[in-house]
């Protein structure tokens, strides 16, 4: 399972997280992002979650206001990639507690840290929810100055599609 990149973007097309597992120039990254956001947003709800794009396969799924979109190689397994997305959403949900788009905006660095524990170099590193969160928890224990962020407004969470 070699994932090439993962993009999170909102219904308005705002990029919320980007993770690239292949070396690309900034220009190419921007071009790809623009193209894919457009393509995926144009698709209707009941359409299938996979599409061919260039020589890659795109697997995407929408959770509340956010689209999670992964590019995998021709031989890779689409369904297990869908579940990679889902497991990542679960991890975010568990960590933030009913995660919503704003959590990812205001704590983008956390979203990246969680992703790094789960996927590394485009491959699944650890699938156990407990183990991933343990790694993040340990890190949190090491930190100081916990301050509650007040700007957080619930948007109904990404949960809608979770359970």
């Amino acid at each position: 399972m070699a994932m090439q990149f993962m993009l999170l973007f909102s219904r308005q097309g705002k990029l919320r997280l980007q993770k690239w597992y292949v070396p690309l120039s900034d220009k190419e990254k921007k071009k790809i992002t623009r193209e894919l956001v457009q393509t995926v947003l144009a698709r209707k709800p009941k359409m299938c979650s996979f599409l061919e794009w260039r020589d890659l396969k795109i697997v995407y799924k929408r959770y509340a206001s956010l689209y999670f979109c992964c590019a995998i190689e021709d031989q890779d397994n689409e369904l297990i990639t869908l579940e990679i997305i889902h497991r990542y959403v679960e991890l975010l949900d568990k960590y933030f507690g009913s995660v919503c788009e704003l959590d990812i905006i205001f704590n983008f660095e956390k979203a990246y840290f969680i992703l790094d524990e789960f996927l590394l170099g485009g491959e699944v590193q650890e699938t156990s929810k407990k183990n991933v969160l343990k790694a993040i928890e340990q890190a949190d224990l090491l930190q100081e100055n916990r301050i509650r962020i007040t700007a957080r407004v619930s948007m109904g969470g990404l949960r809608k599609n979770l359970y």
Partner: protein
Amino acid sequence: MPAVSKGDGMRGLAVFISDIRNCKSKEAEIKRINKELANIRSKFKGDKALDGYSKKKYVCKLLFIFLLGHDIDFGHMEAVNLLSSNKYTEKQIGYLFISVLVNSNSELIRLINNAIKNDLASRNPTFMCLALHCIANVGSREMGEAFAADIPRILVAGDSMDSVKQSAALCLLRLYKASPDLVPMGEWTARVVHLLNDQHMGVVTAAVSLITCLCKKNPDDFKTCISLAVSRLSRIVSSASTDLQDYTYYFVPAPWLSVKLLRLLQCYPPPEDAAVKGRLVESLETVLNKAQEPPKSKKVQHSNAKNAILFETISLIIHYDSEPNLLVRACNQLGQFLQHRETNLRYLALESMCTLASSEFSHEAVKTHIDTVINALKTERDVSVRQRAADLLYAMCDRSNAKQIVSEMLRYLETADYAIREEIVLKVAILAEKYAVDYSWYVDTILNLIRIAGDYVSEEVWYRVLQIVTNRDDVQGYAAKTVFEALQAPACHENMVKVGGYILGEFGNLIAGDPRSSPPVQFSLLHSKFHLCSVATRALLLSTYIKFINLFPETKATIQGVLRAGSQLRNADVELQQRAVEYLTLSSVASTDVLATVLEEMPPFPERESSILAKLKRKKGPGAASALDDGRRDASSSDINGAVEPTPSTVSTPSPSADLLGLRAAPPPAAAPAPASAGNLLVDVFSDGPAAQPSLGPTPEEAFLSELEPPAPESPMALLADPAPAADPGPEDIGPPVPEADELLNKFVCKNNGVLFENQLLQIGVKSEFRQNLGRMYLFYGNKTSVQFQNFLPTVVHPGDLQTQLAVQTKRVAAQVDGGAQVQQVLNIECLRDFLTPPLLSVRFRYGGAPQSLTLKLPVTINKFFQPTEMAAQDFFQRWKQLSLPLQEAQKIFKANHPMDAEVTKAKLLGFGSALLDNVDPNPENFVGAGIIQTKALQVGCLLRLEPNAQAQMYRLTLRTSKESVSRHLCELLAQQF
């Protein structure tokens, strides 16, 4: 987990992000960002040393700004400083910044590597993991050079924590993918394989990915992974849904690991060890069985995880392609999914079935789903699913269902999405050609393609239909009739005009007998489209017009009028102007014979791979093509499909390296000032590039000559000038004919086209035609080797009196014939008076330094100048009686050498050249024929009678002509044919 926010307290960051979100416009956002950048810059440059927290906060802000899409050109040093912080969160932010904004500044790389080195050596697992994540995220060559040697050690060290092992495995994988040369194989590889046995499922999950990648390049080094992977897989699939605790996902045990193990096994052939193989097959069966069990959960995650394993299992079964039972079960399973309510599953089932269709064990099973797939093509609402359905139809197509599939795809094309039309067009064109049972169906299909989706019919497609029509005599009349009808439509696509223009120019004569498609009607139909077409098409039509002048002299005046019009002669486009000028001149100055020579029907195209197939391959990559041209199903249909079927007149066997359109397969002669490439009109039509630009160099006259030469690399010698007879070497110069020369000659008594001679080096093909006392012969010399022939010199020699009986004009051919190439030589033949011995063809060349020479008899016999004569029984008997002098009759009684088949005999007699007269001989078993031998000096009337005796397996052949020698000679020639 309490519902508190997990900020690590960077209030300033949160405020900044809020500000940005509150910006009402892009300008406001940029203003706010610039303000922040100025602030951060001043902080970084300020005198006061920043504490770690502030540094972290500002670096994080910079990162946020960068991720918003703005450029960041400072702050790298501060980020690097954070790497050496003892506070985890500061270090973490530092690494994140470095991972996202790598900078190849060498100074920084050195500092970064230093920090990573320290963390790797720290024995603090969380720090080690951060460092490994950073290496994996950056994955640059510099990092590879610095750490590729250390990481294997960390990976297999006994005291490494599990989480460190996991990160190390995937970090190494990333480095190996980026620069395989930097990762040394060694003693550690064996220990990596044994990680498949690790207690910790996470370690196994990470290790499988690494091994899968490494074993592709070094399959033998990692062979032991097969049995370990099989036993791991077997334990997982047979475990109860709760056994694996946290590695169970929605009641499915370790789906990610299972999929990865199945992928690893696809790097190898089926296990050799019977026990291992047995265990694997059992596991695969278990997966297939579980698919039939009721779901343990209604959640889509459960079915996705379960089916992810199922699809990967099917991939492995297809990869092995050796277990018919499993293949058919897989097919049945996919068949169930074809009608599943989940769009995703229908999509994947169609995709997976495509590969299943190419297995001989499951091809038939796949075919049973044809109706469902056609239905999917019609009813699926998602274009990507429809595309999969079209792919599958293409993959499952064979002789038995081709008509149905092609017609469904054509119907689909009318409503297909623009994005996939061209691909569908290519597929239809390929299937129509590959499985054509009769070529009229093929022609109909392609014309339909142009009608329905003309814009998407690429050049390759319409070139191809012309190639096939040109090479197949039996479809030419039909093609002419069909394009003529298609052109009647008030609005027809320009591609239709191109195909129509070309076909009518070549074969319009075949339908000219019908007053509804008489020559003037054909011309005015084509010309009505002329003004609406592009320059390239108009150029093609001009060529059609000059061909019309040749085919239909009655159209000459009209066409000359068109060519003469100011809009042509003074056309702003040089190509059109040049064609108009040259064609006009050609039609006025050239005699009909010359015109007929210049505008000779196109010779057949050499066999080759379909250019359409090549195009589809280019479009889809090699993977897609493998399903297309798999030889297995081809074998049964090679008679008609694939490349152009070798017709008797297709005499060349160009090497596979011949270019797509073969016309240019023969390189231009080195010695000649390449006119062929300068833009032979007829070649232009087929050239790959943009319509050839008119050559500016040659004067109109020269261009004229070179353009109109038949598409072969001939000498640039003027066609209209007297073709100088090839310098005849004296008979003493040439060797005796090869021993089989007579036998070869006999083959051509009753036919005009075929392979005259073939050995290891050279193939000589003949195509010829005769009219009255004139003939034209094309000789095709094919170099079968990969080495160039040098001093290549074919000459025609007239031994004895022949010089006064037969005039043969030859043109020189190029002195070099490249390996795999073919050159063509044209012979103009005139029969002056009756003759008995054929001319000799001497071919001399140097192959690899050794001189080669070869003498053959040229297949020109007196009967070639036969003109058939129809007559009634009464006339026949009257003439028969008139030729009753003993010397006028020649008779032979001989034994049949071939089965006595009346139809074959008829065909031979017609090929011989005489007319066959029915109802003349009272015995219907007998054959009676009549004709006139045309020579310049005299005409010789001939009557013949052939009486087969089936019982005795004998024939009696009688010939009566006005000339004794002719009677005897014809009798001898013909007697050898039965």
